[in-house]
């Protein structure tokens, strides 16, 4: 059964300095805002953040960056937060840029116990420099390793007491894959219902992936 905790407590139990954190969301939609706010209020430093973007300038993960808590960012699209490029140019932030589909699949592969995969995406581009390529049935592919995290901070709509999760519309995005790919998974939800109240056909993330539940207090 997942334990229901406050955001600060959930982070204090799971996150250490230098940890790798996955944070769900596409922009701010589907981002666990309450957990990110608690992360920003906490003492954590030298973090590696795996997230599609670093939110928007100065807010949520954008604020985490501004507070100097992030050492490295792994994601696909940082253009909407110019402070990412500025921090990178100033040598204060390492950035690993990964095509969005490769990012999603690398997280999925980690959660599925795979040692990586070959993708056609990016073959022959700057992002392929130094990467292993292989021709399979006449077509070129790039090798991508799995991407793991110590802790995943995910956002769902509703959970039951066991930790089964259902999502809301485009808030799903990277969350289900991230919930499989970290040692500790903290899910922020709008509501926790009794076990059995969720339709088993509608559950996207089964409870075995989820360690802690946190009720959302920050919303879009």
């Amino acid at each position: 059964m997942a334990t229901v905790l406050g955001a600060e407590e959930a982070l204090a139990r799971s996150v250490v300095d230098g940890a790798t954190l996955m944070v769900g969301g596409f922009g701010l939609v589907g981002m666990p805002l309450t957990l990110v706010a608690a992360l920003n209020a906490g003492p954590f430093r030298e973090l590696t953040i795996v997230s599609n973007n670093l939110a928007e300038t100065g807010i949520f993960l954008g604020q985490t960056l501004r507070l100097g808590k992030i050492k490295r960012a792994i994601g696909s699209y940082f253009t909407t937060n110019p402070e990412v490029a500025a921090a990178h140019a100033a040598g204060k932030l390492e950035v690993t840029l990964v095509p969005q589909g490769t990012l999603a699949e690398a997280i999925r592969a980690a959660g599925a116990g795979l040692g990586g995969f070959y993708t056609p995406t990016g073959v022959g581009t700057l992002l392929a420099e130094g990467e292993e390529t292989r021709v399979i049935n006449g077509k070129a592919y790039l090798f991508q390793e799995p991407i793991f995290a110590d802790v995943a901070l995910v956002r769902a709509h509703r959970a039951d007491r066991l930790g089964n999760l259902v999502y809301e519309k485009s808030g799903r995005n990277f969350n289900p894959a991230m919930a499989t790919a970290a040692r500790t998974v903290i899910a922020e939800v709008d509501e926790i219902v009794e076990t059995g109240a969720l339709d088993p056909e509608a559950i996207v993330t089964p409870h075995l992936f989820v360690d802690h539940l946190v009720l959302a207090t920050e919303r879009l």
Partner: protein
Amino acid sequence: MTDARERIAARAARLLEPGWVVNLGIGIPTLVSKYLPSDAVFLHSENGILGVGPPPASDRIDPNLIDAGKRPITARSGAAYFDSATSFAMIRGGHVHAAVLGALQIDEQGRMANWTVPGEPVLGVGGAMDLLSGVREVIAVMLHTTREGAPKLVGSCSLPLSSLRPVSWVVTDLATFRLADGGLELVELAEGITHAQVRERTEARFRIR
């Protein structure tokens, strides 16, 4: 409809066939949705929606419902939500019929540069490379020249390529090109434009059908 970008979007919309699943990129591609016959194509957005509907009224915005350009949208009847890994399986796996993508440059083999400009603070690739690697037909849309008047259809791209895979169509404000036999073929002129005008503003070699 005098705006060049709108004309490009309207022309690109006519290349899409009823029943297709189509992904629209950011910029001019977004405008394409205005020119689609209603419900004839299914719009896919890589953040996890098949069946993107028109924008909502300002008092009906759902904060959990956006497209990949982060604009508020609606979900049409029959829409489905899914996670990012599934969304890109659809893209790479060849299940999406067409993508309409903006381009910065296209070379004479139809290869596109659209993700980064060296020296500028651009740190984003997003889904562009995945779409180019797996979608069945890629329709590139762009103004024919840069703001400074430099050709964007070039012999070889000075900007980093997004993929080695060529696009199927290029629609600009001056003409529409098809990729055939490894090269660009001009298939249609925009209204009031001559072949000579296109030649003058194009660096890439192309044939005329």
